[in-house]
C-alpha cells in the first residue's frame, strides 16, 4: 500500500513537472500576449495541482498536508484573478487579441 502511494505520488509529480515545463515552452513560443497567457495558465493550474498533490501524498496526514492544501487553494483562487486583471488591463491599453507582436510593433511605428 505504501509503495502504491509512493508510485502514484512520483507519477503525479513527474507529470506536474512535465506540464510546468511545457507551459514554460509555450510562453516562449506563442505569438502574442493573450495566447501566452493560455500557456501560463497551463503551469498555474494543472502543474501546481499535480506537483502539490504529489507532495501531499508524500507528506501523509499531517500539518504539512493542511498547509499544502491551503497553498494550493490560494494559488487556484488568486491565479485566475491576476490573469483576469492582466488581460483586462492589456485590453484597455489597446493590445488587440488577434494581432501578433510583429504587427503591433508595425502599428505603433
Amino acid at each position, binding site marked *: 500500500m505504501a509503495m502504491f502511494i509512493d508510485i502514484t505520488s512520483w507519477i503525479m509529480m513527474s507529470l506536474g513537472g512535465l*506540464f510546468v515545463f*511545457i*507551459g514554460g*515552452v*509555450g510562453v516562449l*513560443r*506563442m*505569438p502574442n500576449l*493573450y*495566447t501566452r*497567457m*493560455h*500557456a501560463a*495558465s*497551463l503551469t498555474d*493550474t*494543472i502543474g501546481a*495541482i499535480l506537483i502539490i498533490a504529489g507532495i501531499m501524498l508524500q507528506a501523509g496526514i499531517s*500539518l504539512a498536508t*493542511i*498547509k499544502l492544501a491551503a497553498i494550493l487553494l490560494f494559488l*487556484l*483562487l488568486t*491565479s*485566475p*484573478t491576476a*490573469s*483576469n486583471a492582466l*488581460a*483586462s488591463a492589456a*485590453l484597455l491599453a489597446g493590445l488587440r*487579441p*488577434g494581432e501578433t507582436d510583429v504587427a503591433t510593433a508595425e502599428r505603433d511605428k
Partner: protein
Amino acid sequence: MSQRLAIKARMLLLLALLVVAWLLWSGLFKPLLLALGTFSCLLTVYLARRMGYFDSDIFALGFGPRLFHYWGWLAKEVVKSSLEVSRIVLNPRLPISPQVVELKASAKHPVSQAILGNSITLTPGTLTMDVHDGVIKVHCLTSEGAAALMSGEMDRRVAALGEN
C-alpha cells in the same frame, strides 16, 4: 434588524476562522504572540467591515457537497483541456486559431458570475478578459475550445450551484 444580526454572525464566523488559522500556523502559545494574533485578527475583521465585505450576501451560495461535486467536474475539464493545450504547444506548426467570444452568464448573482469567470480562466485554452453586465468576454486559443464553451455546460453548472 435581522440584517444587522446577519452581519454580526458573518463577522463572528470570519473571526473564528482567522483565530483557528493563526493558532494552527503559529503553534506557539506565548502571551506576546497570542496578543499579536488577537490584534491582527480584529484588525482584519475591522478592515473587512469597512470594505463592505459583510454587507453582501456572499454566503447565500450552496457551499457544501454541490461545490465539491463542481470542483470534481472542473478538475476533469482542466485535465482534458490541459492535454489539448500541451499538444498545441508541442506541435511544431503551432495550430492555434485564437478568437474572442461573448458568453452570457445565466446566473445573476455576482459571486456566481465571479465563479464562472474564474473557472473559465482556470481551464487552459480559455481566458476571461472582461465581465460586464453578466456578459463575459472570453479569449479562446482554438475554435474548438470556443465551440465547447458556447455549448454552455459550464454556465449551466455554475447557475445550478447558485440555486438554493
